[in-house]
């Protein structure tokens, strides 16, 4: 007999448990069963993911224990290891340079907007099968991170923290369909709402149906009092297309976010909003024909010469 009553009873019980959890999770907000379990998962699996990311990512650390060796054979092994390590160092220089450049850009943005933030690295990303666009980063409540804090990188708005564990937190990315942020047009000051749509373009809904919008217009976060969930003045993206909606009560445009979500690595979690609204000072300069001729990455700008490996203290005070 392949299948019997007992198996079916167990199946029914487990399905009932799952169904109960789903129902409870839909009803409850913060402090519900769902968020409690997620907090538990954050504490249990966060450190596991951190450890795994630490093992997987820096390749060169495997050969550290090979330096104290006396016999010849072992010396050869050590030299071979060193050779390999050097080879890896050569290979990873590009990555280090890129990371240093990203950090430099992030610090630049933080300085411009006078945000106080905690730098963090993406360690895990959500699967496509779960439909969510979320990421785990390696900073948590121990670093002062709380739910609903704004997450940025050197290019602009990344998302917001939706749950925080001791050493990790989960970031809802701006392209997630559940993501919502109050926004402001950089020039005209028109107010609207930005919403993610997964791989489809981000949508901006302006409350004024007569608002003048053209492609190339820049959009920043509006920001609410106390800077949660969003601090003011963070660049969101540029208008690429305006949706023709005659007779509608609002105006809809599509945005190209400044942040590239497929190569997300170093981010900053804003732990303290600026005392003064930075208005439009953080926006990237409007591209001019001459600057578009420079291929990205070919010549590092003078500001990006920070030496790799030298990282600032976790809390950066502007």
């Amino acid at each position, binding site marked *: 007999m392949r299948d019997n009553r007992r198996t079916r009873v167990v199946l029914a019980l487990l399905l009932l448990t799952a169904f109960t959890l789903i129902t409870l999770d839909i009803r409850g907000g913060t402090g519900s069963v769902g968020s409690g379990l997620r907090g538990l998962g954050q504490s249990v699996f966060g450190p596991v993911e951190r450890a795994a990311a630490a093992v997987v990512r820096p390749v060169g650390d495997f050969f550290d224990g090979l330096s104290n060796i006396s016999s010849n054979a072992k010396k050869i092994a050590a030299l071979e290891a060193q050779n390999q390590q050097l080879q890896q160092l050569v290979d990873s220089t590009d990555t280090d340079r890129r990371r240093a450049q990203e950090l430099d850009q992030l610090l630049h943005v933080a300085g411009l907007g006078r945000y106080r933030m905690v730098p963090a690295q993406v360690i895990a990303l959500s699967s496509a099968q779960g439909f969510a666009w979320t990421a785990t980063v390696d900073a948590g409540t121990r670093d002062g991170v709380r739910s609903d804090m704004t997450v940025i990188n050197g290019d602009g708005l990344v998302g917001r923290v939706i749950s925080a564990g001791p050493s990790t937190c989960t970031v809802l990315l701006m392209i997630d369909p*559940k993501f919502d942020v109050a926004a402001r047009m950089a020039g005209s000051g028109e107010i609207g709402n930005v919403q993610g749509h997964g791989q489809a373009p981000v949508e901006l809904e302006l409350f004024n149906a007569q608002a003048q919008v053209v492609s190339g217009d820049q959009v920043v976060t509006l920001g609410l009092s106390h800077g949660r969930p969003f601090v003011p003045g963070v660049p969101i993206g540029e208008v690429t297309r305006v949706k023709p909606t005659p007779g509608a009560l609002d105006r809809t445009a599509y945005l190209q976010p400044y942040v590239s979500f497929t190569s997300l690595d170093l981010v900053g979690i804003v732990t303290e909003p600026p005392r003064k609204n930075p208005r439009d000072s953080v926006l990237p300069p409007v591209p001019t024909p001459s600057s578009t001729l420079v291929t990205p990455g070919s010549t590092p700008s003078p500001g990006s010469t920070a030496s790799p490996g030298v990282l600032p203290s976790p809390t950066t005070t502007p």
Partner: protein
Amino acid sequence: MTIRRVVLATALLLTSLVLQLVVVNRWHLPGGGPFLMLLVVVSLAAVWGPMPGTVVGFAAGAILDVAPPADGPMGLWAGVLCLAGYAAGLVWLDQRRPVWIWLVLVAVTSAAVVVVYAGVSALVGDPRVAAAGVLGLIIGTVLYDLLLTPFVVPGVAALARRVDPAPSIR
């Protein structure tokens, strides 16, 4: 016997979870990428039978529901993978079965879990389903899982048999 099963299942599920979240998802594969945990659940269930398959599936789904950066409806993966484990357990393969049964099993369960997950998400009003491109995701998941089957399933199945060489029929 049961303790050894629990240890092996835990180790395999944790390994596949970490590989999925920390390594595979960073590649941003077109079509979504493979579903490693499902491959582990299907392999274990097909060797151990429906009852252990149901339990392993539920455990895998529960881990997937709470491990960061998960943000779907809590308990949904637990229910979906529990069903997948039960279904794979019903097929209950032994070494004499032809290889193609494994491929059919992986393809059917891969498509089914995405369909059921999307269906329930849509029923509970999750706005993400509309933006997800479910059809492309089903095709992508099935293809990647089939591609990985020869590399993952025989190894996991062999480990499962070694831990529990003569599964008692329950």
